[in-house]
């Protein structure tokens, strides 16, 4: 009943041209049967009367002209879903690889999804306590947010993401997050690390994993995150769950996209990446959020490694233009032995201000955060000046700021991998640091809070610490 063709006319990995095709559907899925009986899958990238251009997910290795049979399946790529996907591990194209049974689906969902109607969205406002001060205090994560980690090779992004997954909770609620994990071209070790983490904490029961490893087909990476996000949408909006999606490493995804674009000889955009990279990434990252009147939510933490540690590289750049902030890791802090090495100045959570404050975290949160940012920025400038000209070249005030920056890194940013700080603890550490500064320097803090917190904590600490 499917239309089948042996009319492949041209192969340029990972693409195929098939001729004499009776009207393929754009984006339709095809199955390719090789002469040895093995099968590959692909997708129609362009269709015109009598001709179809196909990208092969597993690559074109072993496909020959005149031998392979191409079968057009008449539908777009779909993910079979049911509550039984929880606790399961799939490969990058959604086939179970954990030895478990086939999924008997409630439904089959188009993995490309449809755009969420902006009117249907509910603004994310629920504070997620990750227990990590650099995030909770300054770059607060909110339920339904998309907040990527910009990392670089050799930095502990996996450990930080695992710590967030382990500790994340919404204050006042008991329900834990269901984790959807999408591995995109990462190593076996890294994937294994996540799996072990999920197993050790028992979270695996509420997780769904899609694994495309470094030695798996690169083109498959185009569909893996779509599989993961389709599973997430199903769990969140059909099954009312709070879902945390971790996608790593988005850089590998973008490389795969570039590879296909180059094979199609498209006009390249910046640094060889296709001109539609922004639109393509947005079609993934925007699949996060909340819906009015629905219980579930999707919080996304994509991880990417910045090529050459460069934030202006198209991959981090376009990601930052789409996501609601970014957590940037710093090689410098990592070298100093500080975990988590969060470079807080260029890091940002755009949803912070609606997720914090009275009744959510604490009334003084926003002011404290702004003041810490400003003071640390000035302290870092002082540190830089001192390294060039010596500490003696600083004004008295700048010397205080320099000390502040050092203490800030050592006590606020630095913490244990298994240390789970409450938001109160985080803010109190913040105030302890702000005490180092003269009161008139604290311009970001409104009068009322200055009286309550600066004075109180200063007095409380005075007896203990001075000397």
């Amino acid at each position: 009943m499917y239309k089948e063709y042996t009319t492949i006319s041209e192969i340029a990995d990972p693409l195929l041209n098939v001729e004499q095709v009776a009207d393929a559907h754009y984006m339709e899925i095809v199955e390719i049967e090789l002469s040895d009986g093995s099968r590959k899958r692909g997708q129609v990238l362009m269709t015109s009367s009598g001709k179809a251009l196909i990208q092969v997910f597993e690559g074109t290795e072993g496909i020959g002209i005149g031998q392979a049979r191409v079968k057009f399946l008449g539908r777009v790529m779909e993910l079979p879903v049911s509550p039984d996907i929880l606790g399961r591990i799939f490969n990058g194209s959604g086939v179970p690889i954990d030895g478990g049974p086939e999924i008997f689906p409630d439904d089959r969902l188009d993995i490309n999804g449809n755009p969420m109607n902006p009117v249907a969205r509910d603004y994310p406002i629920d504070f997620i306590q990750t227990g990590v001060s650099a995030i909770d205090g300054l770059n607060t994560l909110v339920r339904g947010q998309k907040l990527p980690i910009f990392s670089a090779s050799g930095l502990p992004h996996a450990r930080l993401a695992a710590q967030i997954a382990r500790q994340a909770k919404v204050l006042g609620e008991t329900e834990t997050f269901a984790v959807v994990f999408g591995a995109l071209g990462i190593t076996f070790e890294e994937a294994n690390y996540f799996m072990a983490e999920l197993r050790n904490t028992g979270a695996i029961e509420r997780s769904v994993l899609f694994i495309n490893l470094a030695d798996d087909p690169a083109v498959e990476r185009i569909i893996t995150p779509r599989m993961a996000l389709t599973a997430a949408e199903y769990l969140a909006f059909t099954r009312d769950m709070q879902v945390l999606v971790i996608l790593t490493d988005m850089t590998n995804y973008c490389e795969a996209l570039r590879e296909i674009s180059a094979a199609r000889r498209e006009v390249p955009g910046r640094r060889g990446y296709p001109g539609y990279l922004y639109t393509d990434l947005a079609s993934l990252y925007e699949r996060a959020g909340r819906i009015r009147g629905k219980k579930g939510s999707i919080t996304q933490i994509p991880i990417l490694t910045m090529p050459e540690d460069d934030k202006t590289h198209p991959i981090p750049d376009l990601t930052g233009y789409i996501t609601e902030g970014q957590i940037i890791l710093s090689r410098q802090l990592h070298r100093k032995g500080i975990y988590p090495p969060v470079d807080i100045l260029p890091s940002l959570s755009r949803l912070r201000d609606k997720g914090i404050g009275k009744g959510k975290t604490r009334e003084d949160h926003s002011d404290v955060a702004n003041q810490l940012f400003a003071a640390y920025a000035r302290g870092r400038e002082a540190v830089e000046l001192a390294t060039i000209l010596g500490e003696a070249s600083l004004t008295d005030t700048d010397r205080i700021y320099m000390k502040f920056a050092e203490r800030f890194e050592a006590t606020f940013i630095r913490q244990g991998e298994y240390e789970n700080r409450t938001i109160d603890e985080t803010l109190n550490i913040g105030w302890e640091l702000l005490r180092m500064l003269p009161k008139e320097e604290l311009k970001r803090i409104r009068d009322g809070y200055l009286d309550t917190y600066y004075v109180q904590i200063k007095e409380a600490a005075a007896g203990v610490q001075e000397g």
Partner: protein
Amino acid sequence: MVMNIEKKGVIFSVNGPVVIAQNLPDAKMYDMARVGTKKLAGEIIGIHGSAVTIQVYEETAGLQPGEPVETTHEPLSVELGPGLIGNIFDGTQRPLDVILKSSGYFIPRGVEAIPLDRTKKWDFKPVVKIGIAVQPGDVLGEVQESTTIVHKIMVPPGLSGTVKSIKPGAFTVEQTIAVLDTPEGEKKISMLQRWPVRTPRPYVRKLNVDEPLITGQRVIDTFFPIAKGGVACIPGPFGSGKTVVQHQLAKWSNAEVIVFIGCGERGNEMTDVLMEFPELIDPYTGEPLMKRTILIANTSNMPVAAREASVYTGITMAEYYRDMGYNVALMADSTSRWAEAMREISGRLEEMPGDEGFPAYLGSRIASFYERSGKIQCLAQEDRQGSLSVIGAVSPPGGDLSEPVTQNTLRVVQVFWGLEDRLAYKRHFPAINWLISYSLYIQNLESYFKENVGFDFSDLRALAMRILQQEAELEEIVRLVGVESLSFKERFILEVARSIREDFLQQNAFVDIDTFTSLQKQYLMLKVVLVYYQEGMKALDQGLSLRDILSIPVRERIGRIKFVPEDQSSKLKEIISEIQDQMKAKMRGEVESNV
């Protein structure tokens, strides 16, 4: 006459949003087409022999060669009439709340939704009498569209005659409210007009701009003001504050109608506006902000061809309210996404690419978009003026301003607010770099500021700017040789510059008392800081030490001037005299101790 029944063409090929159709009779450039069995909306953007290129406004997955294509014989147009205000549309003017009701949380393909409600009745009040001769743009009657907007029902362009009948009452947008006797016979007029989005609406002539669009943002109003009818762009890397500034302008600027276009940006940012604007109160009218706002949301994950159209859809509605005599402000966030949509489609057409893959016509498209702004003499017999200010965000890759969209934009706009990540990292917001930004309207607005704010307003601005420039030079020296090499006066300049930055320029959008500052308060705030400067300089001349000047008690109050409530501006004047008194006291003390 034989009817042509073969009115349809067929799909030949599908490549992303670009579909090529064959044998489509009567295809005309920029006419709309219905593509495929799902009748997806598209626009004809190329004709080569029998091949017709169509950009499709919806996701094309599943389309197949051989499916039917037909043209609607009409260019992409929007509906104009009561019901636009307070509404939210996608890039081709489909109302998103209607789609929500008909199709659920996610937008499926091929949904049709009529922009203006056909059942709602509006109370129409005629303002002309039977027998009057009317011309295009003349107001026939009025409808209270929202609590703040009186919608003027105008004679559509191209039509004139005498009023044959007109009556008050409750009408739907399609019902006839008046009949005109015209040379071509009787014409029925309803409250609904259509206008092709790519064609600017007509007016009599452009006028000089002479009034500021007051935004309540200190760095903008005081240093880099935009005029009513002006054009501004706001480029900056991701996270530097483009959207926040645009939202601030949408909230607090003294335009009467706001059109906000979310062009290829985040869904949640539109939700934010949708949830916040009905709650926020417009300081000028005392009514919720949503009562003056129209939203266009074609977010980054919505179809890219509709994103391309969204800026035209938005500006056509904006022009329509301008034609009624309103001051309209339009924000487009982000014009780069619009340019990228052009690039994406151009790439699929395999056109010859220009700079960075953008089509060669990028510059002319940008220029003609911004050219639709301005203060105008409206088309009408009466003397009526309106204005349309346009503020476009630009998102340069890697924050590099030398890229084509920024460069082409800078060629046509008069105001440049350059955002910088370095400032954003320090949480200096708005992160507008005062050294690179400019406004070419300062001259036009000079007399307005003199008459309405303060006779010395421009002098204060110039002095503050000079201090900031000196700061930049002095900091260079400090970086090379340290602060000791500076004279006391120079060190004092650094302190004052810091005060200008921290106490005046920095403005937190999320703190109630700081989010909006009236021109009067801006003026007094700046005066506080600069009086301190002038008194301090005098004192240094008279031998006071820098430490003395920096330690006068009133400095703590200077650091908190932004928290002085709008209705207590006398406190700012109080601070000014305190500065003078304390400085004098210091000098007396100094003189005494020197004796």
